[in-house]
């Protein structure tokens, strides 16, 4: 049908230009040779972008640190998100709207403003240290900002709503009589959770985990603003290679490696979503 082709043609053109072509160019530059010109590479089949990744453990470490930090972030998010999702799902409809708003409002206040708030909390002269010093509990300020703990707090704060929403949706679909029956038969709350709620919502929990894990693995801003200088997650290394060292082939090769590592989690997430 002509009308359909007319509708599809611009969408195809857009997607080929702004999604497919950039991916192809990324791959071409990952294989190119670095050059001192502008742009700083020469097209070739050299593998020069990948060579440092194999030779220098710095890059492999950056990928592994990113996966580890993303996994911890996603695990912490899940632990905080379960009681919140259960509480919201069980609330009366009017209260539920309020709780959902209380969940989403921090999310809508802007990513960087929330990072700014954490910097205010954790700095040497920040709110927490001020409180502890005012109470006479410490003499010198605790060094909290620019630590791995600070980075994790910032990341969990940024991604927590992503973990709550899929769990909440799954809990709404869960038949409440199942949990009531277990409780009536004498199961303790922890037993009800472990034997009824958790197994029934396991696919949603996995989806929530991946929904946090995938973006967290490439995170750049929070490690940069809150993490320790030595916490070289791959997103930060990629950024530095591109903007500071102007080594485009290495940056492109790192992007492809990150994608390669995330392909399995991404496919798994898409299968869970398609159910």
């Amino acid at each position, binding site marked *: 049908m002509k009308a359909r082709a007319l509708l599809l043609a611009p969408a195809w053109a857009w997607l080929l230009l702004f999604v497919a072509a950039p991916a192809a160019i*990324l791959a071409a530059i990952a294989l190119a040779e670095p050059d001192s010109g502008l742009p700083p590479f020469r097209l070739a089949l050299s593998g020069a972008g990948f060579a440092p990744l194999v030779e220098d453990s710095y890059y492999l470490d950056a990928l592994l640190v990113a996966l580890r930090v993303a996994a911890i972030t996603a695990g912490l998010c899940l632990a905080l998100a379960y009681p919140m999702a259960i*509480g919201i799902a069980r609330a009366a409809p009017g209260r539920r709207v309020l709780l959902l708003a209380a969940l989403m409002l921090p999310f809508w206040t802007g990513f960087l403003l929330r990072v*700014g708030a954490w910097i205010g909390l954790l700095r040497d002269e920040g709110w927490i240290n001020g409180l502890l010093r005012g109470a006479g509990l410490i003499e010198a300020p605790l060094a909290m900002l620019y630590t791995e703990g600070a980075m994790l707090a910032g990341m969990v704060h940024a991604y927590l709503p992503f973990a709550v929403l899929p769990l909440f949706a799954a809990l709404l679909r869960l038949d409440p009589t199942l949990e009531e029956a277990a409780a009536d038969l004498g199961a303790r709350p922890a037993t009800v959770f472990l034997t009824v709620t958790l197994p029934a919502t396991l696919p949603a929990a996995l989806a929530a985990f991946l929904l946090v894990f995938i973006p967290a693995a490439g995170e750049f801003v929070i490690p940069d603003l809150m993490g320790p200088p030595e916490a070289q997650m791959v997103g930060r290394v990629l950024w530095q290679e591109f903007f500071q060292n102007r080594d485009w082939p290495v940056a492109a090769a790192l992007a492809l490696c990150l994608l390669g590592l995330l392909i399995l989690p991404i496919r798994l*997430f898409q299968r869970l979503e398609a159910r």
Partner: protein
Amino acid sequence: MRRGRALRWAMGLGFAFLWAPILLLVAYAFSADRIPYQWGGFSLRWFAALAANERLVEAALLSLRIAAGAASLAVLLGGAAGWALARFGPFRGRAVFGALIGAPLVLPEVVTGLSLLLLFVALEAAIGWPAGRGATTVLLAHATLGAAFVAVVVQARLADADRTLEEAAMDLGATPWTAFRTVTLPLIAPALAAGWLLAFTLSLDDVVIASFVSGPAGTTLPIALFSMLRLGLTPEVNALGAVVVLGVGLMLGLAALLLRPRRG
């Protein structure tokens, strides 16, 4: 009810974790002290300082313009793509089309940003467009990202809806255009509105992709904030936080009031 109490505590902990930093940020926006962590008595001076900060105000206006443009483009593009995926059946290249429209949803931001920047550099070298990078390149990047979200929302809405409605309209003699205008469009209008808002907020909040594809002429609000935060928190950032939280809270409050389930 021990069960209820333990759950309430755990839920309260989660909400306290989410809210404590934000409430402090907002509260200290009203402090007179130059140091944003010290209480120096109530004052509105930092709101005045924020309004007088030309760099931040200009960046905010640019961000709003880019977000509105990107969201509108995203609705056109993502709406068409979502409709095609839900209603066109197995057209040629459907799997590739679906993968391409959905890719920005799952790609890490650094990868999307880097690859789009490389595209813009290559395009400029080849055909001279876009000349340099700035607001236009950020808008194009954000439209691509937003379209992915709009397509998902529209496709989901159409998957839930009965397709026989459109078929009935055409059986009764409506042209495809009339059937679209009178049946499909009203059906997907809420999804388009939600998608527009989603694309708008994504664009307003994005710092990573914008930093890659922007140039000196394209300093959006997140880019300006990011460079400010590198040096630490300033009272103007506190004031901006207060403005945003109170503004969003007001809108959410209104929405909740309007959507409040009626009793009886």
